[in-house]
């Protein structure tokens, strides 16, 4: 059917794309692990970040990898404000309300993008977009290889933050036992907002990694977020290793099903996995009980 070289290339490409998926999923699982909410606005935030990276390139001539240095803090601030001043207060702590509020936020963000920038698909041209890494038996796209490395760096940075800084300890405390953390003097609303901001920053970095080889339009985020949900559910809600491993796995699955089933049906493979995981083992491979 397909030669081993084609298969291996598909798998390797899958791993590279999967890494970026994993970064998006990482943000989602971080938010779930601490706030215990499923952030339906995650995809819209990714769309927003993609547009940000796009305009940084078009208007300011900023290379996406450089733009990440500005976009990440900017989106961190946005995510912080979103949670602190809109999502948190509006939902009055009720689970069902939080669902609806994040959905509402997602709809607003996505459609503001649609209204402002129309539905046209845009791409950017960076000189290294089509450069490849020669592995001897196959070639790998350079942007994707860079992306893989960047994701690993971010994962390590996050781990360092969580383990060694006071902020990280506060976040872990709130994730484990909110009431106790509050009693210990931790400002839970602040921690929630910071975590949400971190999740959004992950998305911003992911957008910068994606944009050299991907396209931008208001609904791209939506497609990504379902993939991110699949990863988070597969890897386990709230589990960082789960998001990383799940991301790589899903990247490979998408690559392989794209190979066998063609572009559009390849997406279905992911959703079917998603549905099956939810039905069979909702806590995922490494997850904490919901």
């Amino acid at each position, binding site marked *: 059917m397909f030669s081993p070289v084609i298969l291996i290339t598909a798998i390797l490409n899958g791993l590279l794309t999967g890494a970026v998926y994993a970064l998006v999923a990482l943000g989602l699982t971080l938010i779930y692990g601490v706030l215990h909410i*499923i952030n339906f606005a995650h995809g819209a935030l990714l769309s927003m970040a993609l547009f940000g990276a796009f305009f940084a390139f078009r208007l300011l001539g900023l290379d996406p990898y450089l733009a990440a240095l500005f976009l990440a803090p900017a989106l961190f601030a946005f995510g912080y404000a979103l949670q602190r001043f809109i999502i948190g207060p509006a939902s009055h702590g*009720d689970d069902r309300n939080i669902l609806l*509020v994040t959905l509402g936020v997602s709809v607003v963000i996505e459609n503001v993008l649609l209204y402002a920038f129309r539905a046209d698909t845009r791409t950017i041209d960076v000189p290294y977009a089509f450069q490849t890494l020669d592995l001897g038996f196959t070639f790998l796209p350079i942007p994707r290889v860079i992306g893989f490395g960047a994701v690993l760096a971010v994962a390590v940075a996050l781990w360092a933050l969580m383990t060694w800084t006071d902020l990280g300890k506060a976040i872990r405390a709130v994730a484990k036992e909110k009431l106790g953390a509050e009693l210990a003097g931790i400002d839970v609303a602040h921690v929630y907002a910071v975590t949400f901001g971190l999740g959004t920053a992950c998305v911003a970095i992911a957008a910068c990694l994606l944009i050299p080889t991907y396209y931008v339009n208001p609904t791209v985020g939506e497609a990504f977020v379902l993939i991110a949900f699949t990863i988070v559910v597969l890897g386990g809600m709230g589990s960082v290793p789960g998001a990383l491993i799940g991301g790589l796995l899903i990247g490979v699955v998408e690559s392989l099903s794209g190979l066998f089933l063609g572009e559009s049906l390849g997406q279905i493979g992911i959703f079917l996995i998603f*549905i099956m995981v939810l*039905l069979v083992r909702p806590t995922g491979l490494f997850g904490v009980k*919901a």
Partner: protein
Amino acid sequence: MTGVRPILAVVIALAAVPLITDSNTVLNFLVVTLLIALAGQGWNVLGGYGGQYSFGHAAFFGTGAYVTAILQVRYNANAWVGFAAGIAGGAAVGAFIGALTFRVGLRGSYFALVTLAFAEVLRIIASVAPITGAGVGILVKLDLRAAALQFESRAMFYWFILALVAVALMIAHAIERSRFGTWLIAVRENEDAAKALGVNAPRVKLGAMVLSAAITAAAGCFYVQYFLFIDSGIAYGTRLSIEALLTPIIGGAGTVFGPLLGALVVQALGEGAKLIAGDAPGLNLIVYGAVLVLVIAFAPRGLIRLVDDANRWLSRSAKLESAHG
């Protein structure tokens, strides 16, 4: 609890509208409003009374629409038969999804996610499958006869959708008064307590899902008859899923009139936005999303409860005044 008389009053009042005006704009506005209201009434059964929030109700709307469109266009079926088949098809999809998810005990966010995923899967399939017309969609031939469920006068369409909405109102009324409804509400309020009192929660939820799907599917079937066109984006896209949940949430989930009131508000806001800022893509949904957040923040039980509370407050102050007067 809503009695039959208010329902009759509202339906009769609405039915009189075409007798007062023959403005196409007004009638079209109302037809679309009732269409969304019907979709929302379907959502309300599962989400409002049952407390299970589906984010993918388009799965049922789209199935109803496609089944009737395909039967009419590819198999020359009678439009009324197609309509009934569409409702049955939507109900079947509801039964399938419900059987899978409720037996496993999926609730809350997970349930919302799964319904979202199912709708997406259907959308992707419909966008490539030949039978649904793939990317092009399906056009139903213009055939202005009652037998083909198409009417020359917009008023006839209006009365038809109004009849469907009236049926849905009566269904909601019946739910509120039946054992099934009491059990459904109990499951919503506290599933474990309900189970301990003898309620077969998965079965009750499944029943609600099937009924909910059937009603929303009817809205899909009507869409096809009125607009004579359907494609994967309209059928299974997120816009319908959002409208279906928005109207009951804004109007008042778990009430008889909630979805209808919500639909009026949503449509009015949409038209208002169009007047102010022009007809640009995405504008409607920006307003919908913002209103959703605002309603949850300030009137989480919906506008109808606000009206209710206002009524009660007014009658109480009136009583106080007469007592002291």
